[in-house]
């Protein structure tokens, strides 16, 4: 599955490098899915 890696910490770079990330996040219906199958306990959050 896709995951997006970007480098941050520098001033000004390529224009709108977060556009792809925002599109990926907003296009998903993960929160909707979770609200539907409310019964299933949410997956344990990954820890550092």
């Amino acid at each position, binding site marked *: 599955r896709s995951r997006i890696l970007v480098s*941050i*910490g*520098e*001033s*000004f*770079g*390529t*224009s*709108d*490098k*977060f556009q792809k*990330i*925002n599109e990926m*996040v*907003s296009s*998903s219906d993960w*929160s909707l899915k*979770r609200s539907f199958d409310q019964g299933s306990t*949410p997956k344990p*959050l*990954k*820890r*550092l």
Partner: protein
Amino acid sequence: AQECQNLEVERQRRLERIKQKQSQLQELILQQIAFKKLVQRNRQVEQQTKRPPPPNSVIHLPFIIVNTSKKTVIDCSISNDKFEYLFNFDNMFEIHDDIEVLKRMGMACGLEVGKCSPEDLKIARSLVPKALEPYVTEMAQGSISNVYISGV
């Protein structure tokens, strides 16, 4: 006919590259104008108030912002040395970098959307070197599209 065909392909290729480079130059011009305008604004405010703002109320560049709904639950894990963070959200979020924030603050004089008033255009042209002025004028009416912009 074959040589015309080859030249046609080469012409198309150069037009594509010029289009990509024009949008790269456009972004650089926007960043230059936005940063200069931000510095100008802060300098004016500090001169009016005769002092710099409290240190904990300013956010220096570079930065990024992550914004999400107020209802979102954010689970955050941090390593002891603060070199690593892990955030888990239970809702969508958006990420924007500093230049995107400056554009939304109006620091790019509306050039990023091709809507620039005559006064703003005058300010924007004054913030770039002479060689870039024709590009700023083009950007004020939309994006740079003319392939042969006569430089100054």
